[in-house]
């Protein structure tokens, strides 16, 4: 009988500073790699400190025998994660959650709208999609952060900007001296997106307030509510539908989500 609460050990193989308060850690799983889908999450343990849910940020197959997580140090566990270094060990349970629909959106144009620390879950999907680029139509990525230093995956953003087979836009709420790009919240970039909503699906992830405004604009642009797909953030303890914290009606964000279409969110009474 499997014990769903028992973490397996994982070794930190690299640590990268993304922003002043965000780090990416790659993990080698001691019991061997597991299969996962973009949009799924893991429960990360530091024994003695606790456990917290974090999305897997690496594209499927991107990290050999493991995964990458991108963590903002805000809570007890995430701040403790920031103190760790290469070769340290942590506990991992998962992968949990439903993940993004990937095969279901093949053949469609895809718009990604991310804000701040909302990019990591989408980046897992973006890399998964780009790994089979020919299966999808036009691709557009829109990303915003508070300041230029809050942008995560800076090297990858440059690589996306250089690609000819996708449209990439980035903005910051407040610029600094070196910034020459767009200034303004992420929704200010949406009018410049060339994708036609008719045969497109939009994925959005970011702070709840951003998601609310993005959804309003996407609906105005003509996206159907079933074609707007987001991930819900909820306080959760177990990740497996038992602790009850993430329940909305009879659904559990950890089991039935965290990925939901806006249509589903409306049906669940979440806005």
């Amino acid at each position, binding site marked *: 009988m499997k*014990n769903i609460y028992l973490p397996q050990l994982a070794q930190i193989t690299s640590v990268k500073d993304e922003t002043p308060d965000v780090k990416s850690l790659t993990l080698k799983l001691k019991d061997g790699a597991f299969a996962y889908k973009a949009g799924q999450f893991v429960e990360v343990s530091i024994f003695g400190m606790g456990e917290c849910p974090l999305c897997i940020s690496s594209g499927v197959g991107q990290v050999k025998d493991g995964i990458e997580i991108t963590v903002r140090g*805000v809570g007890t566990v995430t701040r403790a994660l920031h103190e760790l270094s290469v070769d340290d060990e942590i506990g991992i349970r998962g992968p949990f959650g439903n993940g993004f629909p990937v095969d279901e959106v093949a053949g469609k144009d895809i718009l990604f709208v991310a804000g701040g620390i909302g990019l990591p879950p989408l980046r897992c999907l973006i890399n998964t999609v780009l790994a089979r680029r020919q299966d999808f139509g036009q691709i557009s990525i829109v990303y915003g952060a508070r300041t230029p230093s809050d942008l995560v995956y800076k090297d990858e953003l440059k690589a996306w900007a250089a690609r000819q087979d996708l449209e990439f836009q980035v903005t910051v709420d407040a610029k600094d001296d070196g910034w020459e790009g767009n200034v303004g919240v992420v929704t200010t970039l949406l009018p410049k997106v060339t994708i036609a909503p008719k045969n497109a699906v939009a994925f959005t992830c970011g*702070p709840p307030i951003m998601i609310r405004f993005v959804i309003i604009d996407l609906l105005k642009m003509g996206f159907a509510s079933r074609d707007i797909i987001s991930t819900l953030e909820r*306080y959760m303890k177990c990740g*497996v539908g038992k602790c009850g914290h993430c329940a909305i009606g009879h659904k559990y964000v950890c089991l039935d989500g965290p990925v939901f279409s806006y249509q589903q969110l409306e049906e669940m009474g979440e806005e």
Partner: protein
Amino acid sequence: MQAKLLPEANLLPLLKRLMAEAEVIGPKRTEAGDVVFEPLERPEEALHHDQYVQSLFPLKDYFFPQTEPLFKVRLEKGAAPEPIYQERKRIFFGIRSCDVSGIRFADRFFLRDFEDIYYRKKRDNSLLISISCLEPGPNCFCVCCDGGPTLKQGYDVQLTPLGEGYHVEALRSRLEVRQNPTVPGRACTTSQVTPLGEDCYVEAGSPKGEEFLNAHQEFFLPASQEDEGRKQDGLAGVDQKFERSTYVAYAIRKITRREVADEWWEELAQRCFGIAGCRYVCPTCTCFHVVDLRDGKECVRQRSWDSCSFVGFTRMVSGETAREKPRDLLRRWGEHKLNFLYLLRDGRHGCVGCGRCLTTCLGRGDTWNIVSRIRELSQQE
């Protein structure tokens, strides 16, 4: 399996035997006068069925303890967590139908999708011997929720008291059987036979229950058709004795269709003190919190009961709280107990009608009050 009869005289010898085989959890009265299910130290401690209706707490603490260690781990590199399991064999004697219904609901919840091994081990090591209620308590409304007073399924063994005094002919033949040493396993002596004692009609509701009856057959007699008739007669009038007897369907419909207005919940929520008493005494409430307890070089990860009535229950690290208005916290309770979607998912709706929330709640935010006040809405329609 054919039903059995448990002569009252065999009850204490049976309990004595069970206590030699496992820990027996039975109904006891505390010095303060409360009824609790605790390990029996002597068979005589077990309350007779007419000495109690409802225990202070349901039995969930035995399967999903208020605090429960999940694993321990040494705080050093390479140390893997070691699970901590409780695998004591337990027999639960004299539990009420509503509590069996509550356990069945929790079974569906804990054992579906990702199976909870801690719950599974405790359930596998348990035997549920329930007893049908012939007299409801003042706050009972199981009859409105398919939670009792007697059960068609869910128990391992169900006892139904048959009332005092029975047919002389049947009595005589049974006395003969009891006194005949050649009949295998006749343990009781003539002096233990109480002709006017209260026998129980005994049914097995699971393979585990059948196995139990087979292994202890010397304590039971075959039940006759007449006994079954007496059982039915005894139960026939029970439903009418409930003070609270209207089925909860209307409230289920209104809540499931989200036809109960925010303002309605808001008004009721003003009466909620947010103490979570209802959640703690509810057999179907199963939310928990998890903490790591450090002790020197070791850490124990422990879960403990939590409650959706607490504002912090859904507070995220970002500072956002998914549910914080009193009305939403109360509605969450109403939804879990009465939304039809739980019936689709867990086989029944989340209220078994034990009435403990009603006993506990100071502000009358309990399920019964929700049900009856929603019913009042129907008169306004």
